[in-house]
């Protein structure tokens, strides 16, 4: 058994993992990044639309600041997020955009003069000032009060990931490709690294580390149709889950994006609607304003996805061999705009549908897109059950997004959390030494070797690929946008049956090196555990909040459900518990989101906290917004990120 030693082990080389690795390396720690694929192929690259940060440079972003970004994020989360985390995030997001500018991201810029754009299906004109010319500009996205989404034409995630990986290369950060962490090494509530399988040679080895960080993205591929890359199967969250020591949180909070193409499930960016695109039904009728008079197509993703599904159920969908869909219409944005700012959409339409979106309507429907749930961490990104285990980005439930993430907040979270959590990882590595017997390492290693041997020597059993397919269909059919007790109960029983079947697996190809069947076999139980958690979480949560919609419980029930679900996998079974969100410490007490259906069962504390907040505000009129914020809900950040963010034309930042 080979053992590698490092200070900071990072699993996953997308934006989140790389940003943490950069901080570790710059602090002088030995740093090792493991990735299933070359870093630049990570799913972060697929984020087309942009990154939210309140720079307030473009005319439609004027007046924006951390406070408004914070309020939008909390409303978007349907009050499910951790408000302190949201505050930290909104404070650092502008710095993250500017840091990436220093590292080479060619952010799109403000151009002075008059511009035409499309809003609410009408042409509108805006004028950008000379003062802001050349600064980083922003576009409109769903659920935001201001134009806050910074972007680079149509390839924001791509240019961010490339700049980030290039920065990591400049620092000599080693990224080992085609390596899969298949188990964590832990003892006495402390994590000591991972057991890793080399996907090419098949070698199993151990990496022992002071700090282990999981940044492996979401678990969208437990669904049949997903916008996610095909390797987003939640394996990182699953290895933490399998320790039994550290919980996952809010697994039932699964986001469906309104506009993935049919049938391929490939995303067309929210930028299509942000830039003025509209949704139409089988009659060519624009239906969203009927449901959402104020925000129309630009309500939050969970709301638009539900409205689309509702409309399809009324018989207004467009029939196709792959089921009913609706139309996304961006024709009025014009060829020039589409070719420059939405070229990825144009390419996807061209290659996968054979259509030109400047002329043709795009067939779309809501499709699984984002996992709000993940490894539960504290505010510093450290897991709540295992010291020395950190997680961030989509793999984690840091809890920035609660029950619904806003568009433009995902790549933003990945980078911002990387900056913040990276500092805590460095601190951890500087303050802790590893004391571990190699016998312990050997024990974890042997478990994995034995499991693999059992699979390759089995003469009969289930095929992992079949089980995965069946799981994906169950999840899409019964644990989708609209949920209710009966289908969820059926789904749970079926998933549990599949899980039992997954205990004896058979593969045709017995080779121990590069072997796609073996990879599926090692993933299937992990994926099923996550699917069971999502389904049980959805069944237990008898309310509708954010992306989690129970048809049999349509209200958001703050009285009983202002809680974070915590999932432990113990004794080969799922255990659920709940963590209460304390209204009395919230800066923004629960209220109406301003879009979507508003049926709320109030929590008794909401009113008293509201009074308290209003009184504090009234009594402290002399304070500036920063001082007032600190009074309402103090939060901490590494000192280097506490400086105020400068904006043009504003004296007091």
């Amino acid at each position, binding site marked *: 058994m080979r053992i590698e030693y490092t200070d900071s082990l990072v699993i996953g080389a997308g934006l989140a993992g790389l940003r943490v690795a950069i901080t570790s390396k710059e602090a002088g720690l030995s740093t090792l990044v493991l990735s299933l694929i070359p870093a630049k*192929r990570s799913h972060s690259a697929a984020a087309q639309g942009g990154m939210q940060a309140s720079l307030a440079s473009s005319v439609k972003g004027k007046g924006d600041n951390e406070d408004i970004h914070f309020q939008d994020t909390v409303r978007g989360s349907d009050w499910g997020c951790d408000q302190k985390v949201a505050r930290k995030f909104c404070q650092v997001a502008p710095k993250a955009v500017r840091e990436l500018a220093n590292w080479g991201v060619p952010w799109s*810029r403000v151009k002075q003069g008059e511009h035409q754009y499309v809003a609410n299906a009408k042409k509108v004109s805006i004028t950008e000032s000379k003062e802001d010319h050349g600064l980083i500009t922003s576009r409109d996205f769903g659920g935001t009060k201001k134009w806050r989404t910074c972007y680079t034409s149509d390839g924001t995630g791509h240019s961010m990931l490339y700049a980030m990986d290039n920065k990591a290369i*400049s620092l000599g950060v080693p990224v080992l490709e085609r390596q899969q962490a298949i188990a964590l090494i832990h003892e006495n509530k402390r994590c000591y690294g991972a057991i890793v399988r080399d996907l090419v040679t098949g070698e199993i080895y151990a990496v022992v580390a002071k700090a282990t960080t999981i940044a492996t993205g979401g678990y969208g591929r437990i669904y049949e149709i997903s916008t996610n890359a095909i390797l987003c199967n939640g394996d990182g969250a699953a290895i933490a889950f399998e320790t039994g020591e550290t919980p996952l949180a809010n697994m039932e909070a699964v986001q469906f994006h309104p506009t993935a193409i049919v049938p391929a499930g490939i995303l067309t960016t929210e930028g299509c609607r942000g830039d003025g695109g509209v949704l139409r039904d089988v009659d060519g009728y624009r239906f969203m304003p009927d449901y959402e008079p104020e925000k129309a197509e630009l309500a939050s993703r969970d709301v638009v996805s539900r409205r689309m599904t509702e409309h399809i159920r009324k018989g207004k969908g467009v029939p196709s061999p792959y089921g009913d869909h609706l139309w996304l219409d961006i024709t009025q944005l014009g060829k020039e705009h589409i070719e420059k700012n939405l070229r990825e959409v144009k390419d996807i339409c061209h290659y996968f549908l054979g259509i030109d979106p400047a002329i043709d309507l795009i067939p779309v429907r809501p499709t699984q897109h984002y996992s709000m749930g993940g490894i539960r961490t504290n505010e510093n990104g450290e897991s709540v059950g295992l010291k020395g285990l950190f997680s961030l980005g989509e793999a984690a439930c840091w809890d920035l997004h609660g029950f619904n993430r806003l568009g433009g907040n995902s790549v933003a979270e990945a980078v911002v959390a990387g900056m913040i959590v990276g500092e805590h990882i460095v601190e951890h590595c500087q303050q802790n030494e590893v004391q571990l017997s190699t016998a312990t390492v050997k024990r974890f290693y042997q478990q994995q070797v034995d499991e693999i041997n059992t699979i390759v020597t089995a003469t009969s059993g289930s095929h992992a690929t079949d089980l995965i397919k069946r799981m994906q269909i169950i999840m899409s059919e019964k644990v989708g946008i609209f949920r209710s007790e009966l289908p969820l109960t059926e789904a749970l029983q079926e998933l549990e049956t599949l899980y039992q079947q997954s205990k004896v697996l058979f593969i045709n190809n017995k080779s121990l090196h590069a072997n796609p069947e073996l990879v599926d076999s090692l993933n299937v139980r992990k994926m099923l555990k996550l699917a069971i958690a999502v389904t049980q979480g959805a069944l237990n949560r008898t309310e509708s909040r954010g992306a989690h919609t129970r048809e049999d419980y349509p209200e958001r029930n703050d009285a009983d459900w202002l809680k974070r679900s915590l999932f432990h996998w113990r004794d080969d079974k799922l255990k659920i518990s709940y963590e209460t969100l304390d209204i009395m410490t919230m800066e923004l007490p629960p209220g109406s989101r301003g879009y979507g259906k508003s049926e709320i069962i109030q929590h008794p504390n909401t009113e008293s906290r509201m009074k308290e907040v209003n009184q504090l505000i009234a009594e402290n009129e002399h304070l500036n917004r920063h001082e007032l914020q600190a009074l309402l809900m103090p939060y901490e950040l590494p000192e280097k990120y506490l400086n105020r963010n400068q904006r043009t034309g504003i004296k007091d930042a």
Partner: protein
Amino acid sequence: MTGRLLTFNIFRFDPQKTGDTPKMVSYTLPETDGMTIFIALNQIREHQAHDLQFDFVCRAGICGSCAMVINGKPTLGCRTLTKNFPSGVISLHPLPAFKLIGDLSVDTGTFMREMSERIENWLHEEKDAVSIDVIETRMEPELAEAIYELDRCIECGCCVAACATKAMKDTFLGAVGFMKLARFDLDPRDTRTAEDYYHVLGNEDGVFGCMSLLGCQDNCPKDLPHQTQIAYLRRKMLTA
């Protein structure tokens, strides 16, 4: 053309398997509506060749993982529709010029990382780069767009696989490296000058080694302007 039977001739070789030798193996598959090479290969793996190796990640033409040689041309498998091949016969080979992992899977990652280290493929910031707390350095909107145009490379490796010079000369940098240097040359935030690039560009492993056959230009899935940029860099090196 739904319903016709497709024939896939696929390069098969597992270099780690003792005694295995490279060969072409045929598989037949009924075509379905909207079928891509991605869909077809997954079906072949599921039902006919469980050990078939290939790489897909985003399956949307964004990540560059799935470049392979399809009927003689290097391109992205995920967005290649089978209906584009009227004969119904499709040959698949791994990209040449990269280390073979097995079947259609090659190691582009090691190559790209070495290329990045060789040309220092990162923005060389000014020493006193502007603080992340204050208003960023301005940039002309058109320039930002022009930089992004050259920043769109997805490191898929098609240009390297299509390059005759690279096939004869292993140390040749190739179009992917040229494009990245052209991108940094355009970027005013990068402090390097043409003299700084000279040792990696101004010789026969650099732009002067290019035979101008322009397989890069013809096969780039992102339609990057390789021809123009190589010509530009040559002129730049001559005047450096």
